Structures are given as structure tokens and as C-alpha cells.
């Protein structure tokens, strides 16, 4: 009798775990149906207003976390660009605008260098200090891909045509994103609770349930702006914890940045799309 009860209990636990895992897995993606969508901005030369046609795609609700990247590294033994080159770029308050520090100790486990602490208590934060090439390796392993530049914007806009998915006034950004609120980067800014990354999903999502489309980390996309663009350039969107209104102001639906495919910054991350 006792043996049977134990078996039932074990089955129950396994079932509970499976149900929870399946439900969570399904809840991690939002379906964006195929269709014609408006992207860009009328005044932008970089990303002009236009209509694009895309197939249906399923995009992750959250940015990829340290926990997810750790599983990839544990399974494959992958060594990131930052670990190979020892040339990651980190931030500390006091630097001039747009200036980052080289830190040979920095990589995804210590995204701002060993002296600024590791990720052990931040496994639910987005993974950073990874290059575009590292991200491609992750995607191959995980059987996922990055969104294209257009797909990212369609998902971010969530049907809106304004500069932000919440309108044209950026004063609401605090509700939706982990960004920098200081006038410059001379002093630390914890006004939204975080100087560096925040846990994924901490701030309010857009209308389609996608979290951190603005701020937290820049999200890599695939695609080029022009056919003649240098192959060493990758693009990322959405702004990051570093971005402020008085600096790049990149936390919006239309801006597109560029970064070297081997560069590793502690404000650079990604979210995936199902293949």
C-alpha cells in the first residue's frame, strides 16, 4: 500500500512538473500573425516609414536570461568572444557620455568585470556581455533564431504607429523600461531600482505582452540597413539600461543601432524567435 502511495505521489510530482513546464514554455512566446505592418518613421533617413510584409512568427516574451545562457554553456562548453579576446567593455559611473571601459575580466558571468560582481543572484536577468557571434551560437544550439529588424519593430510596436508603444510622450518610460534617468553618466542612477540590468519582466509589457522591448538590454536583430553595409556590423534595437533621454534616447520603436559582431558590452543582449 505504502509503495503504491509513493508511486502515486511520484507520478503526481512528475505530472505537476510537466504541466508547469509546458504551460511556462508556451507562455514564453507570443504569436505575431503574418500580415502587412507599418514600420519606420516619416522623418527617419535610417528607418523610413514603410509597409512590410512578414510571415507569422513567435517571439519570446522575455529577453534571454543568464539562466538560459548558462544552460547553453553547460551543454556545449562554448567560450564567448569576451573570454577569448579579453576585450569586453564595461560601465561604471563617472565615465564620459558614450565612453566604456575595457575590462579583461569581464564576460557573461561577470558582465561588468569581476570587481563589480557576478550573476549568481541575477540568473533571471538578461544575459549580457555576449557578442552577435555568441548569440548566433546560442540560437543554433537552442533551435531558435533572432528576429529580423522588421519583426522586432512589429512586435515592439504592438499595432501602434507612435514613437513608443505607449504614445509619443516618453515620460511614461519609467513604467515600461529599465533605462538611465540621470542627465549624464557621471553619477550612478538607481531611480528605477536598477543601475545595470533588471530581472526580465519586471516592468510593464506592451499591449501584446512583450516585456522589456525598451531598455534593460539592446536586442540583437538580423538584417542590414543597406546592401553595401560592412559585414562586421550587427544591429540591435530597443535601448538599454545605459540609455538616457539626454544621450542616445534609443528606447523607442524606430531607432536602429550598430555594433561590431565581435563586440561584447554589458548592455547588449537578445530575445529569440521560434524557428
Amino acid at each position: 500500500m505504502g509503495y503504491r502511495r509513493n508511486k502515486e505521489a511520484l507520478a503526481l510530482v512528475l505530472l505537476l512538473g510537466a504541466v508547469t513546464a509546458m504551460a511556462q514554455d508556451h507562455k514564453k512566446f507570443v504569436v505575431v500573425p503574418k500580415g502587412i505592418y507599418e514600420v519606420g518613421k516619416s522623418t527617419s533617413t535610417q528607418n523610413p516609414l514603410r509597409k512590410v510584409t512578414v510571415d507569422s512568427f513567435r517571439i519570446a516574451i522575455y529577453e534571454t536570461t543568464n539562466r538560459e545562457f548558462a544552460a547553453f554553456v553547460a551543454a556545449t562548453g562554448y567560450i564567448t568572444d569576451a573570454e577569448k579576446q579579453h576585450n569586453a567593455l564595461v560601465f561604471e559611473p563617472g565615465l564620459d557620455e558614450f565612453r566604456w571601459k575595457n575590462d579583461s575580466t569581464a564576460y557573461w558571468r561577470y558582465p561588468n568585470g569581476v570587481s563589480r560582481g557576478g550573476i549568481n543572484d541575477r540568473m533571471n536577468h538578461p544575459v549580457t556581455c555576449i557578442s552577435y557571434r555568441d548569440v548566433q551560437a546560442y540560437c543554433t544550439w537552442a533551435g531558435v533564431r533572432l528576429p529580423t529588424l522588421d519583426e522586432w519593430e512589429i512586435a515592439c510596436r504592438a499595432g501602434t504607429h507612435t514613437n513608443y508603444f505607449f504614445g509619443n510622450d516618453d515620460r511614461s518610460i519609467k513604467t515600461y523600461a529599465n533605462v538611465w534617468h540621470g542627465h549624464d553618466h557621471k553619477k550612478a542612477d538607481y531611480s528605477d531600482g536598477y543601475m545595470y540590468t533588471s530581472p526580465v519582466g519586471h516592468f510593464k509589457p506592451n499591449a501584446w505582452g512583450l516585456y522589456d522591448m525598451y531598455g534593460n538590454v539592446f536586442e540583437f536583430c538580423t538584417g542590414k540597413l543597406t546592401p553595401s553595409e560592412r559585414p562586421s556590423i550587427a544591429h540591435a534595437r530597443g535601448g538599454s539600461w545605459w540609455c538616457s533621454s539626454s544621450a542616445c534616447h534609443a528606447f523607442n520603436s524606430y531607432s536602429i543601432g550598430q555594433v561590431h559582431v565581435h563586440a561584447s558590452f554589458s548592455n547588449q543582449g537578445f530575445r529569440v524567435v521560434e524557428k
Partner: protein
Amino acid sequence: MKPFYLFLGLMLALFACAAPDARSQNASHKKDTASKATNPDEEYVFKLIPFIDKSIMEPPYGLDRLKALIAKMESESTDKFIVATQLDAKVYDSLSFNEKFTYHMIHPESYSQNCSILPTRTDEANRIYGQLPHIFGEFSWSSRQYNFFKDNRDSVQQLIKSVIEKNRAVGENFKKAIVIMNSQELIPLLIGIYNKEKKDHYILTALMLLMKENNYPEFMKSAFYRTLYDLKTGRYSAHLTYNNTNEALIIQQATNFYNGLQAK
């Protein structure tokens, strides 16, 4: 037994309710016939293209030798792209001071962050921007390069002065170094070069950045400061309209600032 199967049934029912909702969490959209999104990455033909911006000014000290060293370093890279490279310590230490200066001015050793190119600059002939443009594309000066400028301020300033006087122009890399080093001493030289053609409005930008960096009261109280740099109203992308009045006022303020420094 019974409670177990009841619970099992309950869990399955819960999942049946929850999962479809999540699975079909469709975004609202404009439905239409769709073609497959292409990935331009797959279509691109790779080739090396130099990144150096044409507005970068090259110092003459050991230029050919340094270009050869940089080219060799880049050709030795196993990567198919130009990657951030730096001369190894032995070669670097063998350079003269002037050669080190040239090396730093033409070869950024590190990467720039994703938003460094933002915001984009347009209509520069009719605008005076509050910030200098980003010049090295996906590359940037490294920490050791910043330190070189700051740690050797006086010597670097002398070299900068000499190259500017010879070229009668101020390359964007020179303006950036001047601002990094807070080279107020070079204000008369900058004004003199600007007045030659009055076309390089980024010289006016450099003058304003020097006044801002030093909290020059006349400038900090001005409408220019409020427009370009103030916490509430200033933005990195902010600019002034280029006209004779604004031009003259910036030069006058910078002259006053410099004269005040000399009087101290």
C-alpha cells in the same frame, strides 16, 4: 485513490484552460497575403571595407610605418572582418612619442556601443550640433588611448597644435581629443581656423563643449546651454540653427572664456 485521480483530472483541466490561451496569444494585425521575410545576412557577399571616416585627419609622424603596422596587424587576424586590434606591447613601446600619437589618432583599438552612432546627423551645414559626431563607426578609442591623451596632455596638445596649423583644418578625431583633454589653451587656434571658412560648425561645437566642461558662467546661463545641454530641455541630438548671430555669440563667449583664463 479517488482524491489522486480527482487531482489529476483537475490539473489536466487547468492545463487545457491555460495552455491554449498562451498558445494562441495572437497579436492584433492587418491580415493580408504574406511573402516570406528574407534574411539579408544570408545574401551578403563578405569583403573587407576600411572603416576610417574621411573626416579623420592623419598626423604625419611615422604615418607610413604605422599604416603598414596596422595593415599587417589586421591582415594577421584570422577573422574575415576587421576586428578591434592593438599593437602588442613590444612594438608599441618601440614607437616614439610622436608615432604613438599618430597611432592613437588613426587607429581606434576598441569597439563602440550600439547607440554611439545615434542620433543621426542631418543638414549639418545649417545646424550647430551640441555634440561632436561619432567618427569611427563600430570602433572606438580604448581605455589606454583615452589615458594616453589625458596623461600626456601638454605634449599631445603641442602635436595637435602643430598638425592643425599645418593642415589649416581640425579633423573630427582632433576635435574629439581636444575635448577629451579639456584643451582650453587651444581655443584661439580653433577660432582662427574656424574664421578661415566658417564652414566647419563642429569647431563651434568643440568650443561650446569646452565652455560646458569648465562650467563657464556666461555660457552656463545662456540660451545655448539651455537648448543643448540642460537636464530638462537638452538632448544629445540637440542643435542650434546656424546663423551669423549664433556663430558670433559662440565665438565671443569662447573668447571671453579664454581671456578670463589668461587673466587668472
